[in-house]
């Protein structure tokens, strides 16, 4: 044993590169490691700076910055409950509308549609992700908002018995409109991840279900969906993270109200939208309040993303997810 070790050592030293030619190797190694470390440092540094910049707002308002219901720039009152509620309500609407459609489209593309159509359909749904958010805003302001106002009025008066949803008078820009546009924006993300997760369902599971006499739908319900549930949940959470932080499109169609809206079709505000709206002319404590809004948003999206990653990791069944970022490289994974 010992003898063989010595021979190896002797043999290696004969072949060993001179120190000078090993230098670039070390440089590349440490250079790349440094680059990776810089990413970590950058995020941590940003977090610390953000806390520092918004510190005086939290020391002045405490928790009422988040839960107080009045945002009045003229009187220097910064209580962001309207933004918190607006952020959560619009994102919830987006999830309720967007996720079922996205998952159903993913199931259809993977399990039911003719093989020829699979890739074109995937690409078309993915293309929604390529539309910039300002273009969604443009479309929302000049097409969707005026066209939806009539149906919204009809809906609110017909279902006036449902609290919060019906009864009020819809405004041109409102929670529902913002939520609907967010739903469209998170559709490609949730759909792409769902497609990937569904593609990992083992063929044996599906064939077993079919062999036992299940119809196609029963096969989907009993074999495909349970297997991919965790991954789909993770995808929905990633979509939620996106919806929480979406700025420009929401800013254009939310209406910038200083207090919590009375019903589904009333104006509201979100953290991201208020930053975009007021950043230009903000000074002093006002700008700190906007940074504080940014901090709350940052923490909110971080929490959602951490939970989402956990679900996606659990749902990918040991394989490292490729397109968990919502940016699939390959248009379709095949089956």
């Amino acid at each position, binding site marked *: 044993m010992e003898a063989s070790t010595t021979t190896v050592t002797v043999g290696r030293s004969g072949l060993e590169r001179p120190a000078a030619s090993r230098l670039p190797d070390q440089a590349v190694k440490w250079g790349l490691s440094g680059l990776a470390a810089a990413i970590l440092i950058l995020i941590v540094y940003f977090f610390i700076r953000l806390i520092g910049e918004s510190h005086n707002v939290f020391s002045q308002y405490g928790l009422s910055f988040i839960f107080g219901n009045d945002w009045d720039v003229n009187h220097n009152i910064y209580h962001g409950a309207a933004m918190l509620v607006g952020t959560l309500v619009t994102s919830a609407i987006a999830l309720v509308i967007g996720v079922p459609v996205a998952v159903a489209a993913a199931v259809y593309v993977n399990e039911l549609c003719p093989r020829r159509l699979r890739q074109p359909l995937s690409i078309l749904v993915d293309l929604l992700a390529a539309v910039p958010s*300002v273009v969604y805003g443009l479309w929302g302001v000049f097409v969707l908002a005026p066209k939806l106002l009539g149906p919204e009025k009809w809906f609110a008066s017909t279902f006036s018995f449902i609290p919060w949803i019906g009864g009020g008078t819809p405004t041109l820009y409102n929670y529902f409109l913002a939520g609907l546009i967010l739903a469209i924006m998170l559709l490609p993300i949730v759909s792409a991840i769902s497609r990937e997760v569904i593609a990992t369902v083992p063929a044996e599971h599906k064939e077993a279900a079919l062999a036992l006499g299940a119809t196609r739908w029963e096969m989907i319900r009993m074999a495909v969906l349970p297997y991919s549930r965790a991954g789909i949940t993770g995808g929905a959470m990633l979509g939620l993270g996106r919806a929480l*932080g979406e700025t420009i499109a929401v800013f254009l169609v939310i209406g910038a109200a200083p207090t919590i809206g009375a019903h589904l079709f009333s104006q509201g505000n979100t953290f991201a939208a208020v930053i975009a709206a007021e950043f230009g002319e903000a000074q002093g404590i006002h700008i700190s309040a906007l940074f504080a809004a940014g901090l709350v948003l940052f923490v909110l999206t971080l929490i959602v993303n951490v939970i989402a990653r956990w679900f996606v990791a659990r749902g990918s069944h040991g394989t490292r997810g490729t397109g968990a970022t919502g940016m699939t*490289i390959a248009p379709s994974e095949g089956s």
Partner: protein
Amino acid sequence: MSISATSLPQVSARRRWNDKIMRGALLAATVVALIPLILIVYFLLKRGLSAWTSSGFFTTDPTGSFFGNPGGIRSAILGSLLMVVLASVIAIPVGIGVALYLTEYGRDSWFANLVRYFVDVMTGVPSIMFGLFIYIVLVTAHVGGGFTAWKGSVALSLLMIPIVVRSAEVVLLLVPGSLREAALALGAPRWRVITKVVLPTAAPGLVTGSLLAVARGMGETAPLLFTVTFAFGLTYNLGTLMNSLPVEIFNDIQSPRSAIVTRAWGAGLTLVAIVLLLNVIARFIASRSRRA
């Protein structure tokens, strides 16, 4: 997969109906998912093309005068391209570098996994946060002036880096280990293996991922609002304010004048056309390299 029904008892009518209805519902959902895209493209073409055909749309800058000729979008297009090129020059090497660290050196070490996790977290950070970050670190600190174009590029690059890293890592992992081992066995040092074997093999995939990141950066408004703001005139100086397509659209949407809103549609069509073109090129390269 289908089994001849003759030898088996019939599936009950209720289950058959259920199957039909649910299949129909899934198909309907897929159609619903496609409607927004169709509508957006339709309205962009309908309202944007009339702006495209107006004289001087691509050859003049926005004038900024409210009553007179609103002008075109030349400075917005060139400004966007310029800033995104600088952002790509930063983000693509850094992103591929980090991905190389993850696949070639870090692998499954705790540090590599930590980096992977942080990169994932970065993809989920709203784009407005990168704008705020650069505003705090570079704009308020007056590093080389207040609002400048290169700071917008830095903000965009922060947004693009995680996209490049994620896609590059996937592609680099696809390079067969045997290729690396063969090169190492022939005595090549690690960095030569990376530059001569790993990167060339993965090149098409790296280009695809980078182009998708560029497309993403191209359409972002929020990071630019906080770092570059806006300018009417054309400039090639990255140390000054600069116009860009997303910010131009953002401002024009809020104008009460219909001629300026029409310009927003034209600019929107231009932006979507550029982003789609980048996407199509990326997919084309991806599909060609898969076939080869």
